[in-house]
């Protein structure tokens, strides 16, 4: 029995770090979030309580719901956009890089943006889309327009574009990981059975890539749904997202309970969607 005791001791030792991490960084913050959402604010100070009024307000007040829906919409647009932009890159990485050098180089290009700060990347779009930005300067110097076009920036378009730009690498890597698992001889088999390149793509590669596509879409959706930097930098009044509301409630209005209630709703929302997506991922899963 000494062996068993020591192995159980070993198990606890092994499990302790992840359990501790999970408790400190996941359970405690969520519990605090929930605790705050039940309280109220009086004279700019938090007053503990036990009321679901804040949660109720998030789900019934039209402005909050509208922003939630807009965030949802931008999240979906980002997920779809990142998938559409990422798939060709992942495809080339997996199948069309003839040499290892080319593949490493493309892979490198995908990874590089992660070395730059998120803020810098979002800000970069300001300098591309702005009144004195790249696009307007180019169009003006070509005399195609007389004064800068303003519809590039400070709207949902610029926010979606920035989010897609920032999160596409996640889609690329997720799809690439799946495409790389497709055995070469399955593709050769399809060709040998008479399939054209397009038929190989449509009948073999796309169906086999679906789990990676779904996983990539879930990641990019989750990341963009709760984003607040892109709307803050390149979004206008039309492109306020739910996290911007939370930031304002926390920093400007000092309404922590309301901010916490929104946080709870957002988390519940995202969890539901992710569960649905996971079910989809499971349905499309392929056993090689």
């Amino acid at each position, binding site marked *: 029995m000494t062996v068993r005791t020591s192995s159980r001791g070993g198990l606890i030792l092994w499990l302790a770090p992840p359990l501790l991490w999970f408790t400190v960084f996941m359970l405690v913050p969520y519990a605090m979030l929930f605790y705050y959402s039940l309280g109220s604010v009086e004279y700019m100070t938090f007053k503990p309580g036990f009321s679901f009024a804040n949660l109720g307000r998030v789900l019934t007040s039209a402005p909050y719901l509208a922003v939630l829906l807009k965030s949802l919409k931008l999240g979906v647009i980002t997920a779809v956009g990142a998938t559409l932009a990422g798939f060709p890159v992942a495809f080339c990485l997996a199948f069309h890089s003839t040499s290892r050098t080319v593949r490493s180089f493309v892979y490198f290009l995908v990874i590089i943006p992660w070395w730059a700060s998120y803020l810098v990347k979002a800000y970069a779009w300001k300098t591309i889309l702005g009144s004195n930005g790249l696009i307007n300067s180019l169009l003006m110097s070509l005399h195609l327009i007389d004064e800068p076009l303003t519809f590039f920036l400070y709207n949902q378009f610029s926010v979606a574009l920035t989010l897609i730009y920032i999160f596409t690498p996640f889609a690329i890597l997720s799809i690439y990981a799946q495409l790389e698992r497709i055995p070469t001889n399955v593709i050769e088999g399809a*060709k040998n059975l008479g399939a054209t390149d397009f038929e190989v793509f449509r009948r073999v590669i796309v169906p086999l890539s679906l789990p990676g596509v779904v996983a990539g879409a879930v990641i990019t959706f989750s990341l963009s749904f709760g984003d607040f930097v892109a709307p803050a930098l390149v979004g206008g009044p039309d492109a306020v997202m739910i996290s911007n509301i939370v930031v304002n409630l926390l920093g400007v209005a000092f309404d922590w309970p309301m901010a916490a209630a929104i946080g709870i709703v957002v988390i519940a929302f995202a969890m539901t969607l992710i569960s649905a997506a996971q079910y989809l991922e499971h349905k499309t899963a392929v056993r090689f």
Partner: protein
Amino acid sequence: MESLINIRRLTKAFGDFIAVDSIDLSIREGEFLTLLGSSGSGKTTTLRLIAGLDPPTSGNIVYRGKDISALPTRLRDMRLVFQDYALFPHLNVFDNIAFGLRVRVTRHKYDEGRVNELVSKYLEFVHLGGQDQKMPHQLSGGQKQRVALARALVSDPPVVLFDEPLGSLDASLRKAMQFELKRMHRELRKTFIYVTHDQEEAMAMSDRIVVMKDAKILQVDTPEALYYEPTSTAVARFVGAANVVTGRVVRSDASETVVAVADGQLAAPGRAAAWKAGEEVAIVLRAESIGLTSAQDVAVRNAISGVVVGRLFLGKAIEYQVELADRHNTLTVTSSREDSVYEVGSRVAVVPKRNAVRILSA
């Protein structure tokens, strides 16, 4: 017989590595042809070139008089059965088999009714009736193999290519599938081109065998011819349970050639290819065509003496390892159970049976 595929000076290089080195080969319509060789001999590369999965570096493949060297694989009349089956993991058995009937090159020939009919027919043909809704991961290795076969056969290709299709099956299943493939070849009357590294499998199944080594073809012949008349020591070693020993020619004329081996002499019937006296040659002795007698008989012409250094009981036969008097060559001798039994350590005389000695250049 008419030759269906003519391969001329076919070469495939991967960078500096020459996988197939300027081979010539004629494949006859309806035959079961096997490319036999150890790994790295170029047999699989040759098959892939024929299938059109890799472009040749140089040389031609002519099919029914037409150069198909540049034709993409989908337009060739050849279907390949892959070593690890290469089934589509997202399609069930039915859709796997129907795949080749639903793609563009074949679509005008088969509407869905005809697809149904053909898939059902070939499911029966490979004994997989009732399994059509299963996914590949639910099948055993043997069943996957049958799906791969049905998938290749269903569009009725004139040529079926096999890349070590039985490689990942266990021994008993292998044997059963060998019979099965022979039956299919007999019933379908298609040209089968088969790749294997297993010489017994090649011998058992083929009409003709192409022995490959180091990117070149050593010999193309029927299994019998390869077995009894190998043209090189490499083929003799690879194809049969053959002993290859070296000796020196004593004399050679139209009636016979006598070679000194160890302390004795062996004689082979004369051939047009005469040898010079004193020349070093290789002698091929198949394990089952040499007999052992007791050492007193060594004086007999056409015998060499040796010592039994190993003995294995094989059931219907006994296999001996006999070290020759020169202590340099060891022979494997298979002897039936009716013959006298020799203990390890006993001195024996090795006597080849009639016409068992084959002389090749060393």
